[in-house]
């Protein structure tokens, strides 16, 4: 049987058998990425709306920088967070290195520019449409931002899902910051890297299929919960 076939079989057995280790790793992957996504969205979405409605010096430079940071190398982020959280680093006293909290910090740094850039592009277009109306209605800046975030929520959901995709598939930063410690910081991507290194390609592939299934399931669940595809709604 080909390795891909074996991978499928492994994935099937792991899922159907509800392998305890797989469940633990998958839940940790979800916990780390969804927590990081929540924090990143709370930072990135208002930031994107503010960039859309407010004119200030160096605004264009800020937007260009944010766009450039979308391609931030995760390994470099991991290294920087590692230095910050290591015992001799400025945040060493917090004891967050090799913990899920440290991994969340690294993922937030990676996700924020991506979510903010995609969200900004949508909100900029919406602001162009609403500009005269909201100015005419004598809205405050806070009301404008709240209006854009609410009326643009479908597009913002897409931005957040892009952030989820980036986070759930990320390996470089969380490997460095988390250390891939069994039962502590091991997640699906670091487990795949480990099994590949050990030569267990079928198991690695099986975990890969589980990861893909998880990512698709979360996307579908969020779309269904927010009813984005229902006719006549936004």
């Amino acid at each position, binding site marked *: 049987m080909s390795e891909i076939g074996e991978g499928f079989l492994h994935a099937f057995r792991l899922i159907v058998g509800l392998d305890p280790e797989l469940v633990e790793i998958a839940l940790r992957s979800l916990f780390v990425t969804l927590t990081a996504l929540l924090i990143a969205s709370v930072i990135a979405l208002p930031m994107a709306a503010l960039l859309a409605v407010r004119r200030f010096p160096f605004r264009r430079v800020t937007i260009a920088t944010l766009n450039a940071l979308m391609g931030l190398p995760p390994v470099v982020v991991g290294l920087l967070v590692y230095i910050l959280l290591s015992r001799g680093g400025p945040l060493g006293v917090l004891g967050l290195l090799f913990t899920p909290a440290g991994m969340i910090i690294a993922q937030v740094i990676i996700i924020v520019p991506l979510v903010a850039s995609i969200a900004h592009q949508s909100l900029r277009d*919406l602001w162009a449409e*609403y500009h005269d109306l909201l*100015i*005419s209605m004598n809205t405050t800046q806070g009301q404008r931002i709240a209006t854009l975030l609410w009326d*643009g929520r479908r597009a913002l959901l897409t931005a957040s899902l892009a952030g989820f995709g980036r986070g759930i598939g990320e390996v470089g930063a969380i490997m460095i910051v988390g250390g891939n410690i069994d039962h502590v910081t091991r997640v699906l991507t670091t487990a795949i890297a480990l099994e590949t290194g050990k030569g267990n390609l079928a198991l690695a592939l099986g975990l890969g299929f589980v990861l893909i299934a998880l990512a698709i399931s979360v996307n579908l669940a969020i779309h269904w919960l927010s009813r984005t595809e229902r006719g006549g*709604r*936004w």
Partner: protein
Amino acid sequence: MSVLLPLEVRGAMVRHRGKVLIGPVDLTLAGDGLSIVIGPNGAGKTSLLKMLHGIQRLSRGELSWACGLEEARRRQAFVFQTPVMLRRTVLENLIYPLRIAGMTRAQARPPAHDWCARIGLEAAATRPATMLSGGERQKLALARALIAGPDLLFLDEPCASLDGRATREIEAILLAAAAKGTRIVMSTHDMGQARRLADEVLFILNGQVHERVGAEGFFAGPGTAEARAFLKGDIID
């Protein structure tokens, strides 16, 4: 009597990339009624309305209201030629300006339902506003502008590209608002509409208020050769 008016405009001018869009304009806007702004394409009708409303910043001159600027902004509204619909339901579009004005959702719902019925969109109250027809959108935009009871309402060609029935409905709402004391300043290309609605006419040409007279006098015999030519349907620069 409105606390907002009179509006005194002195030497007001708007420039964009070196080009004068409107001005210098000197005028006083007071009293009740309906002023119709007419003039050829590109004369500056939209710029005049936006300048008076405060959407377009003055490059020179000044506008002074009878009340403070913040209160003046709260007491006026604007209806655009192409109505901008918030991506919400019809009812939510009507609730929005009341929420901005500080009402709670519970306080805003009854007047929103009332206006929904008044403009004939009761059955569409929970439908997305962006799914309405052009005429329905414009009626909703007008209701949204009037729901907070503005003292002064600006309208930029609100009936452009609407059919006769929708135009008649919009005009009925405008006349009712004017009868209740809302001062209305509206631009139009439709001379029939101008004759039906106007108490006074502002004829705009090359960014200036070329002539400002009572409607009857204007349509009986404009004071300037340009206005006469415009009414005849001649092309004027």
